[in-house]
Protein backbone atom coordinates (compact mmCIF):
# COMPACT_ATOMS: atom_id res chain seq x y z
CA UNK A 1 0.00 0.00 0.00
CA UNK A 2 2.61 2.42 1.13
CA UNK A 3 4.81 1.68 -1.83
CA UNK A 4 1.96 2.38 -4.21
CA UNK A 5 1.43 5.55 -2.36
CA UNK A 6 5.03 6.55 -3.02
CA UNK A 7 5.00 5.62 -6.64
CA UNK A 8 1.75 7.41 -7.22
CA UNK A 9 2.81 10.74 -5.78
CA UNK A 10 6.56 11.20 -6.28
CA UNK A 11 6.31 14.98 -6.81
CA UNK A 12 4.42 15.43 -3.61
CA UNK A 13 7.07 13.66 -1.58
CA UNK A 14 9.77 15.76 -3.20
CA UNK A 15 8.15 19.04 -2.26
CA UNK A 16 7.46 18.01 1.30
CA UNK A 17 8.71 20.63 3.74
CA UNK A 18 12.15 20.26 5.28
CA UNK A 19 10.93 18.92 8.60
CA UNK A 20 8.87 16.22 6.93
CA UNK A 21 10.83 13.01 6.44
CA UNK A 22 10.56 12.17 2.78
CA UNK A 23 9.63 8.53 3.34
CA UNK A 24 7.97 7.93 6.68
CA UNK A 25 7.05 4.49 7.85
CA UNK A 26 3.45 3.35 7.60
CA UNK A 27 2.91 4.02 11.27
CA UNK A 28 4.26 7.54 11.09
CA UNK A 29 2.23 8.03 7.95
CA UNK A 30 -0.94 7.21 9.83
CA UNK A 31 0.08 9.53 12.67
CA UNK A 32 0.60 12.29 10.16
CA UNK A 33 -2.77 11.70 8.62
CA UNK A 34 -4.52 11.91 11.93
CA UNK A 35 -2.57 15.00 13.03
CA UNK A 36 -3.14 16.77 9.73
CA UNK A 37 -6.80 15.93 9.90
CA UNK A 38 -6.82 17.48 13.36
CA UNK A 39 -4.99 20.56 12.07
CA UNK A 40 -7.40 20.85 9.22
CA UNK A 41 -10.37 20.66 11.57
CA UNK A 42 -8.92 23.22 13.98
CA UNK A 43 -8.02 25.70 11.24
CA UNK A 44 -11.50 25.41 9.85
CA UNK A 45 -12.97 26.23 13.23
CA UNK A 46 -10.52 29.10 13.66
CA UNK A 47 -11.48 30.46 10.27
CA UNK A 48 -15.17 30.28 10.95
CA UNK A 49 -14.61 32.18 14.19
CA UNK A 50 -12.87 34.90 12.21
CA UNK A 51 -15.81 35.14 9.86
CA UNK A 52 -14.87 32.31 7.49
CA UNK A 53 -11.94 34.11 5.83
CA UNK A 54 -9.73 31.62 4.01
CA UNK A 55 -6.28 31.21 5.51
CA UNK A 56 -3.62 32.80 3.32
CA UNK A 57 -1.11 29.99 3.57
CA UNK A 58 -1.85 26.73 1.75
CA UNK A 59 -2.96 23.98 4.11
CA UNK A 60 -2.82 20.22 3.85
CA UNK A 61 -0.48 17.33 4.21
CA UNK A 62 0.75 15.76 0.96
CA UNK A 63 0.35 12.29 2.47
CA UNK A 64 -3.26 13.06 3.13
CA UNK A 65 -3.81 13.87 -0.55
CA UNK A 66 -1.79 10.86 -1.68
CA UNK A 67 -3.80 8.56 0.56
CA UNK A 68 -7.02 9.98 -0.80
CA UNK A 69 -5.91 9.44 -4.40
CA UNK A 70 -4.90 5.88 -3.55
CA UNK A 71 -8.24 5.08 -1.97
CA UNK A 72 -10.12 6.55 -4.96
CA UNK A 73 -7.91 4.56 -7.32
CA UNK A 74 -8.37 1.27 -5.47
CA UNK A 75 -12.13 1.72 -5.18
CA UNK A 76 -12.59 2.56 -8.84
CA UNK A 77 -10.32 -0.32 -9.82
CA UNK A 78 -12.43 -2.60 -7.68
CA UNK A 79 -15.74 -1.46 -9.11
CA UNK A 80 -14.64 -1.35 -12.76
CA UNK A 81 -13.35 -4.92 -12.60
CA UNK A 82 -16.28 -6.25 -10.61
CA UNK A 83 -18.30 -8.85 -12.57
CA UNK A 84 -21.86 -9.77 -11.82
CA UNK A 85 -22.34 -13.25 -10.44
CA UNK A 86 -23.63 -15.93 -12.79
CA UNK A 87 -27.35 -15.70 -13.44
CA UNK A 88 -28.87 -18.98 -14.66
CA UNK A 89 -32.38 -17.61 -15.27
CA UNK A 90 -33.45 -17.82 -18.90
CA UNK A 91 -30.99 -20.60 -19.69
CA UNK A 92 -32.14 -24.09 -20.44
CA UNK A 93 -30.72 -27.16 -18.67
CA UNK A 94 -29.02 -28.13 -21.94
CA UNK A 95 -27.30 -24.77 -22.26
CA UNK A 96 -26.13 -24.98 -18.65
CA UNK A 97 -24.69 -28.43 -19.24
CA UNK A 98 -22.94 -27.18 -22.35
CA UNK A 99 -21.40 -24.28 -20.42
CA UNK A 100 -20.32 -26.57 -17.62
CA UNK A 101 -18.81 -28.94 -20.19
CA UNK A 102 -16.85 -25.98 -21.68
CA UNK A 103 -15.64 -25.09 -18.20
CA UNK A 104 -17.28 -21.65 -18.15
CA UNK A 105 -19.30 -22.43 -15.05
CA UNK A 106 -19.06 -24.87 -12.15
CA UNK A 107 -21.82 -26.62 -10.32
CA UNK A 108 -21.90 -26.21 -6.55
CA UNK A 109 -22.99 -28.95 -4.11
CA UNK A 110 -26.46 -27.43 -3.73
CA UNK A 111 -27.08 -27.56 -7.51
CA UNK A 112 -26.59 -23.82 -8.22
CA UNK A 113 -24.08 -22.63 -10.81
CA UNK A 114 -21.26 -20.03 -10.55
CA UNK A 115 -18.58 -18.72 -12.95
CA UNK A 116 -15.57 -20.99 -13.04
CA UNK A 117 -12.95 -19.21 -10.86
CA UNK A 118 -10.10 -20.70 -12.93
CA UNK A 119 -11.47 -19.18 -16.13
CA UNK A 120 -12.30 -15.93 -14.35
CA UNK A 121 -8.60 -15.32 -13.89
CA UNK A 122 -8.08 -14.72 -17.59
CA UNK A 123 -11.29 -12.83 -18.23
CA UNK A 124 -10.78 -9.07 -18.09
CA UNK A 125 -8.48 -7.38 -15.60
CA UNK A 126 -8.48 -8.85 -12.09
CA UNK A 127 -9.60 -6.61 -9.28
CA UNK A 128 -7.49 -5.46 -6.33
CA UNK A 129 -8.82 -8.25 -4.13
CA UNK A 130 -7.65 -10.89 -6.59
CA UNK A 131 -4.21 -9.26 -6.70
CA UNK A 132 -4.16 -9.12 -2.90
CA UNK A 133 -5.05 -12.81 -2.74
CA UNK A 134 -2.28 -13.61 -5.23
CA UNK A 135 0.22 -11.52 -3.22
CA UNK A 136 -0.78 -13.33 -0.03
CA UNK A 137 -0.22 -16.67 -1.73
CA UNK A 138 3.15 -15.67 -3.16
CA UNK A 139 4.42 -14.10 0.04
CA UNK A 140 3.34 -17.12 2.08
CA UNK A 141 5.77 -19.25 0.11
CA UNK A 142 8.38 -16.55 -0.47
CA UNK A 143 11.25 -18.77 0.66
CA UNK A 144 10.10 -22.00 -0.97
CA UNK A 145 11.88 -23.60 -3.92
CA UNK A 146 9.40 -25.83 -5.70
CA UNK A 147 11.58 -26.69 -8.68
CA UNK A 148 14.37 -25.47 -10.90
CA UNK A 149 12.25 -22.69 -12.34
CA UNK A 150 9.78 -22.15 -9.52
CA UNK A 151 11.54 -20.28 -6.75
CA UNK A 152 9.83 -18.19 -4.07
CA UNK A 153 9.49 -14.43 -4.56
CA UNK A 154 12.26 -13.69 -2.03
CA UNK A 155 14.73 -15.66 -4.13
CA UNK A 156 13.58 -13.94 -7.31
CA UNK A 157 14.12 -10.53 -5.69
CA UNK A 158 17.55 -11.65 -4.50
CA UNK A 159 18.53 -12.80 -8.01
CA UNK A 160 17.37 -9.55 -9.59
CA UNK A 161 19.07 -7.38 -6.98
CA UNK A 162 22.38 -9.23 -7.20
CA UNK A 163 22.29 -9.19 -11.01
CA UNK A 164 21.51 -5.49 -10.93
CA UNK A 165 24.13 -4.74 -8.24
CA UNK A 166 26.87 -6.66 -10.09
CA UNK A 167 26.32 -4.87 -13.37
CA UNK A 168 25.76 -1.47 -11.82
CA UNK A 169 28.79 -1.56 -9.51
CA UNK A 170 31.15 -2.82 -12.19
CA UNK A 171 29.87 -0.17 -14.62
CA UNK A 172 30.17 2.57 -11.99
CA UNK A 173 33.75 1.76 -11.03
CA UNK A 174 34.89 1.60 -14.66
CA UNK A 175 32.89 4.67 -15.67
CA UNK A 176 34.28 6.76 -12.80
CA UNK A 177 37.86 5.72 -13.50
CA UNK A 178 37.56 6.46 -17.22
CA UNK A 179 35.60 9.63 -16.49
CA UNK A 180 38.33 11.00 -14.23
CA UNK A 181 40.97 10.29 -16.88
CA UNK A 182 38.88 12.00 -19.58
CA UNK A 183 37.95 14.87 -17.27
CA UNK A 184 41.58 15.65 -16.50
CA UNK A 185 42.68 15.51 -20.12
CA UNK A 186 40.74 17.87 -22.37
CA UNK A 187 42.17 16.45 -25.58
CA UNK A 188 41.25 12.88 -24.66
CA UNK A 189 37.82 14.06 -23.57
CA UNK A 190 37.22 15.69 -26.94
CA UNK A 191 38.47 12.59 -28.73
CA UNK A 192 36.29 10.22 -26.73
CA UNK A 193 33.19 12.39 -26.59
CA UNK A 194 31.75 11.44 -30.04
CA UNK A 195 31.93 7.76 -29.09
CA UNK A 196 30.23 8.37 -25.75
CA UNK A 197 27.53 10.39 -27.44
CA UNK A 198 26.87 7.58 -29.94
CA UNK A 199 26.88 4.85 -27.32
CA UNK A 200 24.74 6.71 -24.79
CA UNK A 201 21.40 6.65 -26.62
CA UNK A 202 21.66 2.98 -27.69
CA UNK A 203 19.16 0.92 -25.74
CA UNK A 204 21.08 -1.57 -23.60
CA UNK A 205 18.70 -4.29 -24.84
CA UNK A 206 19.93 -3.70 -28.38
CA UNK A 207 23.26 -5.13 -27.28
CA UNK A 208 21.71 -8.33 -26.01
CA UNK A 209 21.89 -10.56 -29.12
CA UNK A 210 25.50 -9.56 -29.69
CA UNK A 211 26.40 -10.10 -26.03
CA UNK A 212 24.62 -13.43 -25.93
CA UNK A 213 26.48 -14.47 -29.07
CA UNK A 214 29.85 -13.43 -27.64
CA UNK A 215 29.66 -14.57 -24.02
CA UNK A 216 27.37 -17.52 -24.81
CA UNK A 217 25.88 -17.49 -21.32
CA UNK A 218 22.53 -15.86 -20.50
CA UNK A 219 23.54 -15.36 -16.86
CA UNK A 220 26.45 -13.10 -17.77
CA UNK A 221 24.57 -11.54 -20.65
CA UNK A 222 21.95 -10.22 -18.23
CA UNK A 223 24.68 -8.69 -16.04
CA UNK A 224 26.35 -7.18 -19.10
CA UNK A 225 23.08 -5.65 -20.29
CA UNK A 226 22.81 -3.92 -16.91
CA UNK A 227 26.46 -2.91 -17.29
CA UNK A 228 25.82 -1.38 -20.71
CA UNK A 229 22.81 0.48 -19.37
CA UNK A 230 24.75 1.89 -16.43
CA UNK A 231 28.11 2.87 -17.87
CA UNK A 232 27.43 5.77 -20.26
CA UNK A 233 25.61 8.31 -18.09
CA UNK A 234 28.15 7.94 -15.27
CA UNK A 235 31.06 8.16 -17.69
CA UNK A 236 29.75 11.31 -19.35
CA UNK A 237 28.87 13.15 -16.14
CA UNK A 238 32.07 12.13 -14.34
CA UNK A 239 34.16 13.47 -17.19
CA UNK A 240 32.09 16.65 -17.16
CA UNK A 241 32.22 17.00 -13.37
CA UNK A 242 35.98 16.55 -13.20
CA UNK A 243 36.67 18.89 -16.11
CA UNK A 244 34.46 21.61 -14.63
CA UNK A 245 35.98 21.32 -11.17
CA UNK A 246 36.95 24.81 -10.03
CA UNK A 247 40.55 25.58 -10.93
CA UNK A 248 41.33 27.01 -7.51
CA UNK A 249 40.92 23.59 -5.88
CA UNK A 250 43.50 22.12 -8.21
CA UNK A 251 45.70 25.18 -7.68
CA UNK A 252 45.59 24.67 -3.91
CA UNK A 253 46.36 20.97 -4.40
CA UNK A 254 49.32 21.91 -6.61
CA UNK A 255 50.67 24.52 -4.18
CA UNK A 256 50.50 22.21 -1.16
CA UNK A 257 52.20 19.53 -3.28
CA UNK A 258 49.67 16.73 -2.88
CA UNK A 259 50.66 13.43 -4.45
CA UNK A 260 48.53 12.32 -7.40
CA UNK A 261 46.86 9.78 -5.13
CA UNK A 262 45.91 12.42 -2.55
CA UNK A 263 44.93 14.79 -5.33
CA UNK A 264 42.54 12.16 -6.72
CA UNK A 265 40.98 11.06 -3.44
CA UNK A 266 41.06 14.27 -1.44
CA UNK A 267 40.34 16.87 -4.12
CA UNK A 268 39.19 15.58 -7.52
CA UNK A 269 36.74 12.84 -6.53
CA UNK A 270 35.14 14.67 -3.58
CA UNK A 271 35.00 17.85 -5.62
CA UNK A 272 33.27 16.18 -8.53
CA UNK A 273 31.17 13.95 -6.26
CA UNK A 274 27.87 15.84 -6.62
CA UNK A 275 28.08 15.65 -10.42
CA UNK A 276 29.22 12.04 -10.35
CA UNK A 277 26.30 11.15 -8.10
CA UNK A 278 23.92 12.77 -10.58
CA UNK A 279 25.35 10.55 -13.31
CA UNK A 280 25.10 7.50 -11.06
CA UNK A 281 21.47 8.36 -10.42
CA UNK A 282 20.69 8.37 -14.15
CA UNK A 283 22.66 5.15 -14.60
CA UNK A 284 20.84 3.62 -11.66
CA UNK A 285 17.47 4.35 -13.23
CA UNK A 286 18.37 3.05 -16.66
CA UNK A 287 19.99 -0.09 -15.23
CA UNK A 288 16.89 -0.77 -13.19
CA UNK A 289 14.76 -0.33 -16.30
CA UNK A 290 17.04 -2.65 -18.29
CA UNK A 291 17.17 -5.52 -15.81
CA UNK A 292 13.48 -6.47 -16.10
CA UNK A 293 13.24 -6.97 -19.90
CA UNK A 294 16.68 -8.62 -19.86
CA UNK A 295 15.34 -11.26 -17.50
CA UNK A 296 12.21 -11.65 -19.60
CA UNK A 297 14.11 -12.15 -22.83
CA UNK A 298 16.86 -14.34 -21.40
CA UNK A 299 14.61 -16.40 -19.15
CA UNK A 300 16.83 -15.77 -16.16
CA UNK A 301 15.12 -16.18 -12.78
CA UNK A 302 14.15 -12.83 -11.28
CA UNK A 303 11.23 -10.46 -10.86
CA UNK A 304 11.19 -9.61 -14.58
CA UNK A 305 11.03 -13.32 -15.30
CA UNK A 306 8.18 -13.64 -12.80
CA UNK A 307 6.13 -11.11 -14.73
CA UNK A 308 6.73 -12.96 -18.00
CA UNK A 309 6.04 -16.43 -16.58
CA UNK A 310 2.77 -15.23 -15.05
CA UNK A 311 1.81 -13.88 -18.46
CA UNK A 312 2.60 -17.27 -19.98
CA UNK A 313 0.38 -18.83 -17.31
CA UNK A 314 -2.30 -16.28 -18.25
CA UNK A 315 -2.37 -15.25 -14.59
CA UNK A 316 -3.01 -11.49 -14.88
CA UNK A 317 -3.18 -11.04 -11.12
CA UNK A 318 0.30 -12.56 -11.01
CA UNK A 319 1.48 -10.08 -13.65
CA UNK A 320 0.15 -7.16 -11.62
CA UNK A 321 1.78 -8.59 -8.51
CA UNK A 322 5.11 -8.88 -10.35
CA UNK A 323 4.81 -5.25 -11.48
CA UNK A 324 4.23 -4.17 -7.89
CA UNK A 325 7.25 -6.16 -6.72
CA UNK A 326 9.42 -4.45 -9.36
CA UNK A 327 8.14 -1.09 -8.07
CA UNK A 328 8.83 -1.94 -4.43
CA UNK A 329 12.32 -3.26 -5.19
CA UNK A 330 13.05 -0.10 -7.20
CA UNK A 331 11.89 2.19 -4.41
CA UNK A 332 13.94 0.37 -1.78
CA UNK A 333 17.10 0.38 -3.92
CA UNK A 334 16.53 4.02 -4.79
CA UNK A 335 16.15 5.13 -1.19
CA UNK A 336 19.32 3.25 -0.30
CA UNK A 337 21.07 5.04 -3.13
CA UNK A 338 19.79 8.42 -1.97
CA UNK A 339 21.18 7.79 1.50
CA UNK A 340 24.59 7.06 0.00
CA UNK A 341 24.36 10.09 -2.25
CA UNK A 342 23.59 12.32 0.73
CA UNK A 343 26.91 11.34 2.30
CA UNK A 344 29.07 12.61 -0.53
CA UNK A 345 27.33 15.75 -1.70
CA UNK A 346 28.28 19.14 -0.30
CA UNK A 347 27.05 22.69 -0.39
CA UNK A 348 29.05 25.11 -2.50
Amino acid sequence: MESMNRTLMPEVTQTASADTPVRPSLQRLLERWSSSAWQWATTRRGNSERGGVMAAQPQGNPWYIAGFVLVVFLLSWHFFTLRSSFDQRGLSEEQLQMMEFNGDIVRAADGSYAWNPEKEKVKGVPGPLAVLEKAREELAEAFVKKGTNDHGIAYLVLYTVSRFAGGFLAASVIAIMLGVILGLNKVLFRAANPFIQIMKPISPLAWMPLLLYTVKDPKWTAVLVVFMAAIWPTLATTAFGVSSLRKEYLHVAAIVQLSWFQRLFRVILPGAAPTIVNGLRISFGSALVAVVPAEMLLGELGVGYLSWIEWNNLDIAGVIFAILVVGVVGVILDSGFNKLAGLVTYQE
Partner: protein
Amino acid sequence: MPFLLIDHVTKYFSNPSGAGQVCIFKDVTIKIEKGEFVTCIGHSGCGKSTLLNIIAGLETPTEGGIILNGREASGPGLDRMVVFQNFALMPWMTVFENIALAVRSAYPDWSHDQVAAHVKKYIALVGLKGAENKRPAALSGGMKQRVGLARAFSIEPKVLLLDEPFAQIDALTRGVIQEELIQMWNTSRNTVFMVTHDVDEAILLSDRILLMTNGPEARIAEMVHVSIARPRSRETIIEHPHYYKIRNHIIHFLVRHAKHGGSDGATPELATNGNPIIVDFERDSLVAH
Protein backbone atom coordinates in the same frame (compact mmCIF):
# COMPACT_ATOMS: atom_id res chain seq x y z
CA MET B 1 70.47 39.77 -5.28
CA PRO B 2 67.02 40.51 -3.82
CA PHE B 3 65.09 37.82 -1.91
CA LEU B 4 62.43 37.59 -4.60
CA LEU B 5 63.29 38.66 -8.13
CA ILE B 6 60.71 38.78 -10.87
CA ASP B 7 63.15 38.84 -13.73
CA HIS B 8 62.08 40.32 -17.08
CA VAL B 9 58.85 38.39 -17.15
CA THR B 10 56.80 38.57 -20.34
CA LYS B 11 53.49 36.86 -20.91
CA TYR B 12 51.67 36.27 -24.16
CA PHE B 13 48.23 34.71 -24.43
CA SER B 14 47.00 33.23 -27.66
CA ASN B 15 44.38 35.50 -29.15
CA PRO B 16 40.90 34.12 -28.41
CA SER B 17 39.45 35.62 -31.60
CA GLY B 18 41.81 33.74 -33.86
CA ALA B 19 45.44 33.52 -34.81
CA GLY B 20 48.19 35.56 -33.25
CA GLN B 21 49.10 36.33 -29.69
CA VAL B 22 48.31 39.10 -27.27
CA CYS B 23 51.05 40.49 -25.07
CA ILE B 24 49.72 40.85 -21.55
CA PHE B 25 52.81 42.47 -20.10
CA LYS B 26 56.37 42.79 -21.18
CA ASP B 27 59.71 42.81 -19.37
CA VAL B 28 58.33 43.19 -15.89
CA THR B 29 61.12 43.29 -13.34
CA ILE B 30 60.36 43.60 -9.64
CA LYS B 31 62.84 43.24 -6.80
CA ILE B 32 61.41 42.44 -3.41
CA GLU B 33 63.53 42.24 -0.25
CA LYS B 34 62.94 39.74 2.51
CA GLY B 35 60.09 40.77 4.79
CA GLU B 36 58.85 43.43 2.42
CA PHE B 37 55.16 43.97 1.68
CA VAL B 38 54.71 44.98 -1.95
CA THR B 39 51.39 45.68 -3.60
CA CYS B 40 50.50 45.92 -7.25
CA ILE B 41 47.58 48.13 -8.32
CA GLY B 42 46.08 48.42 -11.77
CA HIS B 43 42.85 48.35 -13.66
CA SER B 44 41.02 45.09 -14.29
CA GLY B 45 42.57 43.11 -17.09
CA CYS B 46 46.02 44.69 -16.83
CA GLY B 47 47.45 41.28 -16.02
CA LYS B 48 48.29 41.73 -12.37
CA SER B 49 46.57 38.50 -11.36
CA THR B 50 48.43 36.71 -14.17
CA LEU B 51 51.65 38.13 -12.77
CA LEU B 52 50.74 36.79 -9.32
CA ASN B 53 49.92 33.37 -10.77
CA ILE B 54 53.29 33.34 -12.53
CA ILE B 55 55.05 34.04 -9.23
CA ALA B 56 52.97 31.27 -7.63
CA GLY B 57 54.02 28.90 -10.39
CA LEU B 58 50.42 28.29 -11.46
CA GLU B 59 51.11 29.83 -14.86
CA THR B 60 54.30 29.79 -16.86
CA PRO B 61 55.83 33.01 -18.18
CA THR B 62 56.49 33.22 -21.91
CA GLU B 63 59.87 34.79 -21.17
CA GLY B 64 61.81 35.50 -18.02
CA GLY B 65 61.61 33.79 -14.66
CA ILE B 66 61.18 33.98 -10.91
CA ILE B 67 64.18 33.77 -8.61
CA LEU B 68 63.45 33.12 -4.95
CA ASN B 69 66.27 33.13 -2.43
CA GLY B 70 68.87 32.69 -5.16
CA ARG B 71 67.13 29.79 -6.90
CA GLU B 72 64.79 29.71 -9.83
CA ALA B 73 61.26 28.89 -8.71
CA SER B 74 59.28 27.13 -11.40
CA GLY B 75 56.02 25.33 -10.74
CA PRO B 76 53.90 25.72 -7.63
CA GLY B 77 55.34 24.97 -4.23
CA LEU B 78 54.81 25.31 -0.50
CA ASP B 79 57.26 28.22 -0.36
CA ARG B 80 54.83 30.47 -2.25
CA MET B 81 51.32 30.21 -0.80
CA VAL B 82 48.41 32.03 -2.39
CA VAL B 83 45.41 33.58 -0.67
CA PHE B 84 42.72 33.47 -3.33
CA GLN B 85 40.10 36.08 -4.14
CA ASN B 86 37.31 33.50 -3.93
CA PHE B 87 38.87 31.78 -0.93
CA ALA B 88 39.42 28.39 -2.67
CA LEU B 89 38.41 26.43 0.40
CA MET B 90 37.35 22.87 -0.32
CA PRO B 91 33.62 22.90 0.44
CA TRP B 92 33.61 19.19 1.33
CA MET B 93 36.15 19.70 4.10
CA THR B 94 35.70 21.35 7.47
CA VAL B 95 37.70 24.42 8.46
CA PHE B 96 40.09 22.20 10.36
CA GLU B 97 40.57 19.78 7.45
CA ASN B 98 41.13 22.61 4.99
CA ILE B 99 44.03 23.94 7.03
CA ALA B 100 45.29 20.50 8.06
CA LEU B 101 45.56 19.49 4.40
CA ALA B 102 48.17 22.20 3.90
CA VAL B 103 49.91 21.71 7.26
CA ARG B 104 50.30 17.96 6.77
CA SER B 105 51.94 18.54 3.39
CA ALA B 106 54.23 21.27 4.70
CA TYR B 107 55.39 19.24 7.70
CA PRO B 108 55.21 15.60 6.62
CA ASP B 109 57.23 14.41 9.65
CA TRP B 110 54.80 15.78 12.21
CA SER B 111 52.62 13.49 14.27
CA HIS B 112 48.85 13.68 14.16
CA ASP B 113 48.77 15.63 17.43
CA GLN B 114 51.39 18.11 16.31
CA VAL B 115 49.41 18.86 13.17
CA ALA B 116 46.20 19.26 15.17
CA ALA B 117 47.84 21.62 17.66
CA HIS B 118 49.36 23.71 14.88
CA VAL B 119 46.06 23.96 13.00
CA LYS B 120 44.18 24.90 16.16
CA LYS B 121 46.74 27.59 16.94
CA TYR B 122 46.15 29.28 13.58
CA ILE B 123 42.38 28.89 13.81
CA ALA B 124 42.54 30.67 17.17
CA LEU B 125 44.83 33.32 15.67
CA VAL B 126 42.16 34.35 13.15
CA GLY B 127 39.47 34.24 15.83
CA LEU B 128 37.61 31.22 14.50
CA LYS B 129 37.82 29.10 17.63
CA GLY B 130 34.71 26.93 17.81
CA ALA B 131 34.24 26.90 14.03
CA GLU B 132 36.78 24.11 13.44
CA ASN B 133 34.19 21.57 12.38
CA LYS B 134 32.07 23.88 10.26
CA ARG B 135 32.10 23.61 6.51
CA PRO B 136 32.82 26.68 4.36
CA ALA B 137 29.17 26.88 3.28
CA ALA B 138 28.25 27.69 6.88
CA LEU B 139 30.70 30.62 7.06
CA SER B 140 30.37 34.24 5.95
CA GLY B 141 32.73 35.64 3.33
CA GLY B 142 34.87 37.27 6.00
CA MET B 143 35.17 34.08 7.98
CA LYS B 144 36.04 32.13 4.83
CA GLN B 145 38.90 34.46 4.06
CA ARG B 146 40.09 34.21 7.67
CA VAL B 147 40.37 30.47 7.05
CA GLY B 148 42.20 31.23 3.82
CA LEU B 149 44.65 33.45 5.70
CA ALA B 150 45.07 30.90 8.48
CA ARG B 151 45.83 28.23 5.88
CA ALA B 152 48.37 30.46 4.16
CA PHE B 153 50.16 31.57 7.35
CA SER B 154 50.06 28.08 8.90
CA ILE B 155 52.56 26.63 6.43
CA GLU B 156 54.90 29.60 7.01
CA PRO B 157 55.69 30.19 3.33
CA LYS B 158 58.70 32.21 2.22
CA VAL B 159 56.43 34.35 0.08
CA LEU B 160 52.78 35.06 0.66
CA LEU B 161 50.80 35.94 -2.45
CA LEU B 162 47.52 37.77 -1.87
CA ASP B 163 45.24 37.85 -4.94
CA GLU B 164 42.67 40.58 -4.23
CA PRO B 165 42.06 38.87 -0.91
CA PHE B 166 39.36 41.19 0.38
CA ALA B 167 37.54 42.01 -2.87
CA GLN B 168 34.59 39.74 -2.07
CA ILE B 169 34.18 40.82 1.53
CA ASP B 170 31.83 43.59 2.66
CA ALA B 171 33.46 46.93 3.45
CA LEU B 172 32.99 46.83 7.23
CA THR B 173 34.40 43.33 7.67
CA ARG B 174 37.19 44.11 5.23
CA GLY B 175 38.69 46.73 7.55
CA VAL B 176 38.66 44.35 10.50
CA ILE B 177 40.37 41.57 8.56
CA GLN B 178 42.95 44.01 7.16
CA GLU B 179 43.99 44.87 10.72
CA GLU B 180 44.10 41.18 11.61
CA LEU B 181 46.33 40.64 8.60
CA ILE B 182 48.65 43.44 9.79
CA GLN B 183 48.94 41.80 13.21
CA MET B 184 49.66 38.37 11.77
CA TRP B 185 52.19 39.81 9.38
CA ASN B 186 53.86 41.79 12.22
CA THR B 187 54.69 38.56 14.02
CA SER B 188 55.52 36.40 10.98
CA ARG B 189 57.14 39.07 8.74
CA ASN B 190 56.65 37.02 5.59
CA THR B 191 57.55 38.54 2.28
CA VAL B 192 54.24 39.51 0.72
CA PHE B 193 53.19 40.29 -2.81
CA MET B 194 49.60 41.52 -3.04
CA VAL B 195 47.37 42.42 -5.95
CA THR B 196 44.43 44.73 -5.31
CA HIS B 197 42.06 47.40 -6.63
CA ASP B 198 41.71 49.08 -3.28
CA VAL B 199 44.00 52.10 -2.84
CA ASP B 200 43.35 52.52 0.90
CA GLU B 201 44.06 48.86 1.51
CA ALA B 202 47.31 49.12 -0.40
CA ILE B 203 48.48 52.16 1.59
CA LEU B 204 47.51 50.59 4.91
CA LEU B 205 49.36 47.34 4.28
CA SER B 206 52.27 47.97 1.92
CA ASP B 207 55.83 49.19 2.02
CA ARG B 208 55.82 49.84 -1.69
CA ILE B 209 53.03 50.13 -4.24
CA LEU B 210 53.59 49.27 -7.90
CA LEU B 211 51.32 51.02 -10.38
CA MET B 212 50.60 49.08 -13.52
CA THR B 213 49.45 50.57 -16.82
CA ASN B 214 46.63 48.99 -18.78
CA GLY B 215 47.19 46.05 -21.05
CA PRO B 216 47.91 44.92 -23.61
CA GLU B 217 51.65 45.32 -23.12
CA ALA B 218 51.12 46.55 -19.59
CA ARG B 219 54.12 47.62 -17.57
CA ILE B 220 55.01 48.78 -14.11
CA ALA B 221 54.99 52.54 -14.62
CA GLU B 222 55.58 53.84 -11.11
CA MET B 223 56.76 52.65 -7.76
CA VAL B 224 55.37 54.54 -4.77
CA HIS B 225 57.09 54.29 -1.39
CA VAL B 226 54.56 54.35 1.41
CA SER B 227 56.48 56.70 3.68
CA ILE B 228 54.29 56.13 6.72
CA ALA B 229 55.91 54.53 9.74
CA ARG B 230 54.66 51.24 11.14
CA PRO B 231 52.81 50.15 13.18
CA ARG B 232 49.87 51.50 11.23
CA SER B 233 46.21 51.31 12.03
CA ARG B 234 43.19 52.40 10.03
CA GLU B 235 42.37 55.07 12.60
CA THR B 236 45.73 56.82 12.77
CA ILE B 237 46.99 56.35 9.24
CA ILE B 238 44.68 58.97 7.74
CA GLU B 239 46.18 61.59 10.10
CA HIS B 240 49.59 61.15 8.56
CA PRO B 241 50.60 64.09 6.31
CA HIS B 242 51.68 61.76 3.50
CA TYR B 243 48.51 59.70 3.46
CA TYR B 244 46.47 61.88 1.14
CA LYS B 245 49.51 62.82 -0.94
CA ILE B 246 50.08 59.14 -1.68
CA ARG B 247 46.42 58.39 -2.08
CA ASN B 248 45.83 61.29 -4.49
CA HIS B 249 48.93 60.42 -6.46
CA ILE B 250 47.75 56.84 -6.98
CA ILE B 251 44.20 57.84 -7.81
CA HIS B 252 45.42 60.41 -10.33
CA PHE B 253 47.51 57.72 -11.93
CA LEU B 254 44.57 55.30 -12.09
CA VAL B 255 42.20 57.93 -13.50
CA ARG B 256 44.79 58.92 -16.10
CA HIS B 257 45.00 55.29 -17.15
CA ALA B 258 41.28 54.61 -17.03
CA LYS B 259 41.19 55.42 -20.73
CA HIS B 260 42.73 52.71 -22.79
CA GLY B 261 46.39 53.28 -23.73
CA GLY B 262 47.10 56.04 -21.20
CA SER B 263 47.02 59.78 -21.90
CA ASP B 264 46.70 60.42 -25.66
CA GLY B 265 48.72 57.36 -26.51
CA ALA B 266 51.86 59.00 -25.22
CA THR B 267 53.33 57.83 -21.94
CA PRO B 268 55.29 60.76 -20.61
CA GLU B 269 55.28 59.36 -17.07
CA LEU B 270 57.47 56.48 -18.17
CA ALA B 271 61.13 57.04 -17.66
CA THR B 272 63.08 56.78 -20.89
CA ASN B 273 65.06 53.74 -19.81
CA GLY B 274 61.90 51.75 -19.17
CA ASN B 275 62.43 51.58 -15.42
CA PRO B 276 59.51 52.68 -13.26
CA ILE B 277 59.51 56.20 -11.84
CA ILE B 278 60.14 56.15 -8.11
CA VAL B 279 57.78 58.26 -6.06
CA ASP B 280 58.84 58.94 -2.49
CA PHE B 281 57.23 61.80 -0.58
CA GLU B 282 59.63 61.36 2.34
CA ARG B 283 62.62 61.99 0.09
CA ASP B 284 60.82 64.85 -1.68
CA SER B 285 60.13 66.63 1.58
CA LEU B 286 63.76 66.24 2.65
CA VAL B 287 64.86 67.75 -0.63
CA ALA B 288 62.42 70.64 -0.24
CA HIS B 289 63.71 71.65 3.19
